[in-house]
């Protein structure tokens, strides 16, 4: 679970710097394309929506259960808007190392979460949400926004940021309230 931050941070680093082989490739060194950014955004939202669904049904604390439900609805709403934007821009999201890693780690964490119950479940979920949102905000700020070439895509990323910050603050508040 604590690997989430490391994974997203590593992904951000890879995106920002390119791998050793890619370092010689000017295109890769320039960062992700808009199509790759779109795939990363979709994956990041889908992962948190799906994990939120699990919490909405299995969390014990009613506030954490409600938070999980909100994550499901909010992140799906962001993906709906992202889908409409890429359709308008005629951009087809291109899966890449980061989007694939996000999905794989999301599935692994979902499996881990399903093995927990009660207070352990609540703590594991909400700690994950704090770290996940911190990491995604960092990736949005340091990699996705700076590399977005289309102005509408960049504007959408900027407009999504307050949602991520609100989610982070909410998760931090819930975590602080756990005994």
């Amino acid at each position, binding site marked *: 679970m604590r690997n989430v931050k490391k994974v997203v941070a590593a992904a951000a680093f890879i995106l920002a710097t390119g791998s050793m082989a890619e370092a010689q490739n000017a295109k890769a060194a320039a960062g992700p394309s808009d199509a790759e950014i779109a795939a990363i955004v979709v994956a990041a939202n889908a992962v948190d929506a799906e994990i939120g669904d699990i919490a909405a049904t299995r969390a014990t604390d009613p506030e954490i259960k409600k938070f999980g439900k*909100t994550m499901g*609805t909010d992140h799906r*709403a962001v993906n709906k808007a992202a889908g409409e934007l890429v359709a308008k821009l005629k951009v087809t999201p291109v899966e890449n190392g980061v989007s694939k890693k996000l999905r794989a780690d999301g599935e692994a964490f979902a499996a881990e979460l399903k093995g927990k119950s009660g207070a352990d479940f609540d703590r594991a979920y909400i700690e994950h949400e704090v770290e996940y949102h911190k990491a995604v905000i960092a990736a949005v700020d340091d990699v996705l926004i700076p590399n977005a070439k289309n102005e509408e895509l960049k504007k959408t990323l900027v407009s999504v940021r*307050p*949602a991520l*910050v*609100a*989610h982070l603050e*909410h998760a931090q*508040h819930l975590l602080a309230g756990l005994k």
Partner: protein
Amino acid sequence: MTMKLILAVAAVACTSGAPPVARRAVAIEEFKYQPAVIQASVGDTIVWENRDIVQHTATASDQSWDSGEINAGKRAVTVVRKKGEQEFICTLHPSMKGKLIVR
């Protein structure tokens, strides 16, 4: 006869000097209430307009009034019922806060 009486009462009500009710528009945008501090009078209506892409609420901290969930791009109306100062939040995103000041 009854109709005349009703009209007379209505006329008195209209000229009684009570302040006219007003519509107070509040935008919900980028996870903020704009304005975050609302000045109003009893009887005014507050029109919440959700300009974000996710649902929000505007809910009194003591639950005495609640806009309900406002879908993206939609509006909701709250009628101001009592004087005083009251904080409100979005129950879905509690870091969103505002204050209603009713004279």
